[in-house]
């Protein structure tokens, strides 16, 4: 039992791919999103509360999960707007911005404990890129943007073999 230290630069890394294999952490064809300042994995089951006459407390039942990944990043030119036109991973070609505007579904993973070691944990899923709002200011000096991956389906937890 130990807290997960994220200060060595290999944990909490987001990898995006046009298919599930490309999005696995450590895959050479994956698009690793650099300059991420913070990342949040939202895995929330929906709930409905109801009251009954025989109880002084409300009860609840679960509905569907609503999952998303949210992050804030410094805008890297290639990652945001695309690198070239020759990659198997089309997300690299188009970048986050065009992939978002074209509403293309992407696969992704968030490495939790790093990558390359047996037992390393990552969270994976697929969904749509949204929430991009690149902002520039004199005080900020660089472009900054929030980003959200609206998950289509369930998030999975995987241990590296």
């Amino acid at each position, binding site marked *: 039992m130990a807290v997960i230290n994220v200060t060595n630069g290999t944990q909490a*890394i987001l990898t995006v791919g046009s298919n599930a294999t490309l999005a696995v952490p450590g895959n050479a064809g994956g698009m690793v999103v*650099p*300059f*991420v*300042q913070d*990342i949040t994995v939202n895995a929330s089951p929906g709930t409905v509360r109801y009251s009954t006459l025989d109880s002084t407390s409300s009860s609840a039942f679960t509905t569907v999960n609503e999952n998303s990944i949210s992050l804030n990043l*410094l805008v890297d030119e290639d990652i945001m707007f695309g690198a070239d036109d020759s990659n198997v991973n089309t997300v690299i070609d188009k970048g986050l911005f065009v992939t978002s505007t074209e509403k293309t579904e992407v696969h992704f993973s968030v490495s939790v404990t790093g990558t390359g070691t047996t037992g390393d944990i990552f969270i994976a899923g697929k969904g749509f890129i949204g929430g991009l709002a690149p902002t520039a200011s004199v005080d900020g*000096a660089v472009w900054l943007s929030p980003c959200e991956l609206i998950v289509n389906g369930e998030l999975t937890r995987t241990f590296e073999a």
Partner: protein
Amino acid sequence: MAIRDDLITQITTNIAAHSNVSISQELPFDQSGVPLYNKNMGTIYVDEQDIVVEQLYRTLDQGEVNQSTTTVNAYLSVDAKNEYSDINTVVANLLIARNVVTNVLDKNSDYETDMVDDVITYTFEYNFITV
């Protein structure tokens, strides 16, 4: 070109109309422990630039986005009993010399005075921040 060189060039231009003030490119400007600006009153000496690099943004992948602060000091001593009539203009022209440096996030200049015996020493500090 280094920021110090740019400043010297601009200060030279800005004080051209002030015949009682000149500028030296000399480094170091110290003779037997005595600063030359105290010996050669009316001559501006510009020190070598100092640079401090700090991390501007921290990221989870340890990407480097750094901020560099370049500091340059300049010195001018004048006789307190016979201060130049145009000293305020000279000081103003020295302060705005910072505008010669472009492509920086922030630039500012200020000065302070120090009086020892009959000598007033103006110490100018220029700061330039780049990312």
